[in-house]
């Protein structure tokens, strides 16, 4: 699922994977010093609420686009999807291609004009403008709650990874990283978070790119990699993206192409990339409408390349590592290595002192940037959509900036508390991962109808969102209580967890849309004059006819789409 990091390293083996030298520690220390220096520097430029919560709306398309992508490119996601590619083969690439690219292009070309022209500061803020306070309250509360919980879970998972990989104490990892994040986000707000996400983006590529380069050299290129995997497994379907999706039983993921296309490629992907405020906030910080439209397109172009540093290393591990990696439980029982360690194992295979430190820094940077994204989005939603809307509406701007700073620190503290809670009750992670997915698909139904259908009413938006969310929870509980219900929810008793998530998202989106439409048709719509700047057909979109073709966002969206189609055909 886009943006949802896999939970890795449920239990650490007895020995750490590798030790760091002086050069490695110097590289890691330099990273911490740099992010704090950036926070301190930006504090002087962060005076108003617009500066703190929206980065002054001054970001270029490149900065906003790389930040937009980085907020999703957490280190746990990198390690989790590398593990998934070791386990499921090239099927994992769908979470980077069809599970992201169409939605990112759609956000840039179709949805950004409404988000940007409405001058909203958040996705719940847009719901308030379009559907009223009740929809905003529902979306804001669920987002704020889930964001800090996810932040804490990621924090705990990352600390566990650091313990497994480096032997670091869990408490040290949690407190050192989270206090650093709290410091630089509280100092510089969203601008600081965005700057550090761009830095993280560069570090991830600098630290991870060597693995596929050296790995493909060792394997004899892509053809050599395919041959080695076919030889190891006695099957050729691990290096194909689409050819095994004709039946649930024909692929290791237990998923059908309809689940990938309609569940992942449509509902889950569009829900995450177009309505999750964690990523959308970065684009809202763009300096003008053209930058706001270009930012997701730039992000999509780079997103297409991420499988090179995530999926390919997982496949290389399958082809080149002398030992067979196993599931987490078996790894703990036998003292072996699990799928989840494939990326660190490949890092240790090729990277000596110095390069190893750079790779570890990339992982740490990914974690910290992801957490900064969570707390900066939480601070904005709490301050603007809950505190100012319902608790203290008449305070001055300085008061809200102070609230944002304190809220950032509070968000980090709650995350730390969640991390320790998860340490005691690890099963919480499964539930919260599922909880997060409950809100994404219905929210997309509400937002897309709100933007594209002027007949949608306030009551329709609220009841659609509420019933979509509740139906998703009900389907999840149904399968938990009666596993045989999987054949109805996911259309097959052979479906795995991932497939169940995709179909549950699809059903809840359909329910949200149907309820929204029915209720809207039964209630009185807003006059067109109140929908200007919010809805297609009521909003004048600035023309791009006077702009050179190569400078138009739509041109670059088509270019990215062509490459996207070509990649899918090549790896069919």
């Amino acid at each position: 699922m886009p943006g949802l990091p896999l939970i890795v390293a449920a239990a650490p083996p007895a020995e750490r994977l590798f030790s760091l030298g002086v050069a490695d520690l110097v590289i890691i220390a330099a990273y911490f010093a740099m992010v704090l220096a950036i926070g301190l520097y930006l504090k002087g430029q962060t005076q108003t609420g617009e500066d703190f919560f929206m980065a002054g709306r001054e970001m270029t398309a490149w900065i906003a686009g790389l930040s937009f992508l980085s907020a999703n490119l957490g280190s746990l996601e990198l390690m989790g999807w590398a593990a998934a590619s070791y386990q499921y083969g090239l099927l994992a690439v769908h979470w980077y291609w069809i599970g992201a690219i169409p939605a990112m292009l759609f956000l840039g070309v179709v949805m950004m004009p409404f988000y940007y022209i409405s001058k909203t500061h958040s996705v719940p803020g847009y719901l308030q403008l379009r559907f009223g306070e009740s929809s905003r309250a529902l979306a804001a509360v669920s987002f704020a709650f889930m964001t800090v919980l996810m932040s804490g879970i990621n924090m705990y998972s990352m600390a566990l990874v650091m313990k497994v990989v480096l032997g670091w104490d869990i408490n040290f990892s949690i407190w050192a990283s989270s206090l650093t994040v709290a410091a630089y986000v509280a100092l510089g707000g969203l601008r600081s978070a965005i700057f550090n996400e761009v830095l993280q983006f560069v570090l991830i590529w600098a630290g991870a790119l060597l693995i596929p380069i050296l790995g493909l050299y060792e394997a004899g290129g892509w053809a050599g990699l395919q041959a080695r995997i076919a030889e190891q497994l006695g099957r050729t379907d691990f290096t194909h993206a689409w050819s095994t999706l004709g039946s649930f039983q024909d692929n290791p993921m237990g998923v059908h192409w309809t689940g990938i296309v309609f569940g992942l490629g449509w509902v889950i992907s569009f829900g995450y990339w177009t309505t999750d405020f964690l990523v959308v906030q970065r684009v809202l910080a763009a300096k003008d409408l053209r930058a706001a439209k270009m930012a997701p397109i730039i992000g999509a172009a780079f997103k297409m390349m991420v499988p090179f540093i995530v999926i390919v290393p997982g496949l290389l591990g399958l082809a080149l590592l002398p030992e067979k990696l196993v599931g987490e439980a078996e790894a703990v029982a036998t003292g072996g290595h699990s799928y989840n360690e494939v990326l660190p194992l490949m890092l240790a295979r090729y990277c000596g002192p110095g390069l190893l430190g750079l790779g570890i820094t990339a992982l740490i940077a990914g974690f910290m940037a992801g957490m900064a994204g969570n707390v900066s989005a939480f601070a904005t939603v709490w301050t603007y959509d809950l505190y100012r809307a319902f608790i203290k509406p008449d305070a001055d701007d300085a008061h809200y900036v102070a609230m944002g700073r304190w809220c950032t620190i509070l968000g980090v503290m709650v995350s730390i508390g969640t991390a320790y809670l998860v340490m005691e009750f690890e099963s919480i992670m499964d539930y919260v991962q599922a909880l997060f997915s409950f809100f994404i698909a219905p929210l997309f139904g509400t937002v897309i109808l709100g933007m594209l259908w002027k007949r949608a009413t306030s009551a329709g938006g609220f009841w659609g969102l509420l019933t979509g969310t509740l139906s998703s929870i009900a389907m999840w509980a149904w399968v938990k209580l009666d596993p045989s219900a999987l054949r109805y929810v996911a259309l097959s008793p052979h479906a795995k967890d991932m497939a169940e998530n995709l179909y549950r998202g699809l059903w809840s989106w359909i329910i949200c849309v149907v309820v929204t439409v029915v209720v809207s048709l039964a209630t009185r719509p807003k006059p067109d004059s109140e929908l200007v700047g919010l809805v297609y057909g009521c909003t004048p979109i600035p023309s791009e006819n006077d702009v050179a073709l190569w400078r138009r966002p739509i041109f670059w969206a088509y270019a990215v789409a062509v490459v996207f189609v070509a990649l899918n055909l090549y790896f069919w």
Partner: protein
Amino acid sequence: MTSTSKPEAVSIWFFVGVLLAFYGVVITGEGLYHLAYPPERPVVLAWLHADLWWGALLLLSGLFYCYHFAPRKAG
């Protein structure tokens, strides 16, 4: 490609350049050291000396960004 329109603002790319250049120096230095004193347990493909050329690439990239996005040019 500065990050903000304020004349005094330092571009994020300058910070990126500083860090990359520093990392380039440290990693290239490690590579040179291991060229003179090969480690007892070398990594796979150690003979390619990835630390040397990757470190040099980071250093050159870092210096380019430092020069191109130096604060005096920002805005």
